[in-house]
């Protein structure tokens, strides 16, 4: 671990703590730091409800952000494509389509069931993209994966809007799910998703060596004794677990998976031993900040985290790219 990477790790850790504290304190009503503790521990405190709701969404935002950023780093690493992002490879579109079908066709309205359905959709979409890409002459190269992902996304998005146009009631619930939000979910949802996220994170962090080998190209990776096909499958499972669960919990939040790995690589170098853990921290920080800022920007209303991430992350990403700081894979 280089000096730069460890410095970045310390900075991100501090930022993560600051962001979570801010997320607990700031909102439509300010909670004084002194009263926060009593509100969290003492159920009879008048602010207990607010504190609990904020704690729930803070945990959820951190978990979702970390998962999405890690998923993005894994995908970019294994496809060697700087454009790879759970959104581009059809995962979000798959989850959205599955949600719409579940809402319209089976009348599912339970959050726990949403998680399972979105998860299934994400997995099927990724398998489909991979299968279509692998059917080509050169197999599942990074470029075919990205193009097939875009094509599958387009098909699924059309199918989604077709269902929505036919079914007004589904549209009404879907349009609030599709922005991506961490508010109004209680802790029980996170406990359903937590095991999936945990397995995904562990599996993802186990991929470090495999991704470093993959970065050298398929032939060299084979020469180093890797079984390329199996490695890709392992990464794909981790990505589906992470991105699928995150999408199920909070709706499709674009951009975390793209921005955070790029930023981390630009600041700490391309080795996955540093990139993957730092992405976990960076993703959590970005989502927490976006969620907190979204709460105070338009006082009575609230801007959803999915929107805020793009509004904050977009310009940051543009700056990063323009400085030429993106590290090629």
């Amino acid at each position, binding site marked *: 671990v280089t000096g730069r990477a460890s410095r970045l790790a310390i900075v991100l850790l501090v930022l993560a703590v600051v962001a979570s504290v801010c997320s607990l304190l700031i909102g439509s009503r300010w909670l004084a730091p002194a009263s926060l503790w009593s509100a969290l521990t003492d159920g009879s405190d008048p602010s207990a409800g607010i504190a609990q709701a904020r704690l729930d969404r803070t945990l959820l935002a951190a978990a979702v952000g970390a998962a999405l950023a890690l998923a993005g780093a894994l995908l970019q690493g294994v496809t060697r494509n*700087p*454009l790879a*992002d759970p959104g*581009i490879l059809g995962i979000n579109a798959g989850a959205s389509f599955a949600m719409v079908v579940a809402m319209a066709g089976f009348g599912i309205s339970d959050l726990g069931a949403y998680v399972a359905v979105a998860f299934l959709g994400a997995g099927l979409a990724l398998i489909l993209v991979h299968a279509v890409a692998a059917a080509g002459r050169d197999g599942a190269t990074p*470029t075919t994966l*990205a*193009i097939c992902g*875009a*094509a599958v996304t*387009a*098909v699924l*998005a*059309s199918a989604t*809007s*077709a269902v*929505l*146009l036919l079914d*007004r009631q589904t*549209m*009404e619930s879907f*349009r*609030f799910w*599709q*922005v*991506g939000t961490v508010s109004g979910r209680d802790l029980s949802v996170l406990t359903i998703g937590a095991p999936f996220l945990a397995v995904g994170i562990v599996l993802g962090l186990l991929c470090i060596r495999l991704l470093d080998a993959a970065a050298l190209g398929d032939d060299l990776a084979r020469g180093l004794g890797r079984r390329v096909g199996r490695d890709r499958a392992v990464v794909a499972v981790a990505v589906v677990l992470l991105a699928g669960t995150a999408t199920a919990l909070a709706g499709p939040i*674009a*951009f975390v998976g*793209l921005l955070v790995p790029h930023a981390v690589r630009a600041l700490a170098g391309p080795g996955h031993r540093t990139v993957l853990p730092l992405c976990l921290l960076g993703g959590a920080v970005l989502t927490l900040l976006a969620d907190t800022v979204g709460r105070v920007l338009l006082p009575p209303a609230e*801007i*959803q985290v*999915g*929107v*805020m*991430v*793009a*509004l904050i*992350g*977009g*310009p940051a*990403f*543009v700056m990063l*790219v*323009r400085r*030429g700081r*993106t590290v090629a894979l």
Partner: protein
Amino acid sequence: MSTVTPTLDPPIVAVRSARRRVARRTAYAITGLTVVWIAVFLVRITQGDYLISLPDAVRIIRGAEIPGASYILMESKLPRAVLGTGVGVALGLAGAIFQTTLRNELASPDIVGVTLGASSAAVFGIVVLGQSGSVISALAVAGALGVALTVRALADGHNGYRLVLLGIGISAVMSAVIQYLFTRVDEFNATKVLQWLGGSLSNVEWRAIGSLLRARRAGPGRHRLAVEGPAGGRTRRRPACRSRRGAGVCRCPDGPRGHPRRDSPPPSPGRSPSSPSSPAPSPGR
């Protein structure tokens, strides 16, 4: 991408046969696609809720009046078929120009943010300004142009991954805007927005077709310039803007459409029959 391995032939024979193969494949592709296009076009104007027999359709187009059928064919079926063709051609061209000029097979108006720029401007018009009709079309074109110019300016002449990455960044912001507006809107307008975003050829008027044609007029000619022009500088800039305009306009009468431009491969330089001076086949052929 055919692998030519003439082991014994003298070089000139090999080159000749390789060129012939490319020319033959081009001819097959053009003929096949034309046949399919005509067939689909005829199906579109004769089939549907209201059936019109093929002889009747021909008679109506040549000027005969058949009560009922005339109106449906001329005011509903034909405009939709013509506009569908036009939109497909425009988007296919736009994608091909993008991919050749930017030398990036991932480049397409929707990945680089042009589509979303048009969409977000139109949704803004519907939701915030409460507009409809041609104002929305104008807004969509303005949005597409705005995003195209912004991405272009931000990329500073770097056309490879940097432009695509910037486009993706801008797209993310644009789609966030759309999503946010979509949650703010009442139910009636939500349907309207969704319909627009879904892309539809229904309720087309001949006027819309005229605007599409005007926007696209200079397309193919510029395209040759782009293919043959030098690697950098002004020659590349103009065609890219053209293509964006095409993509922006065909968005406006009917909303964005997802895939056609990626399904249609970029025409290889030798494919255009009107350009005998097109570059020689690359040595790989």
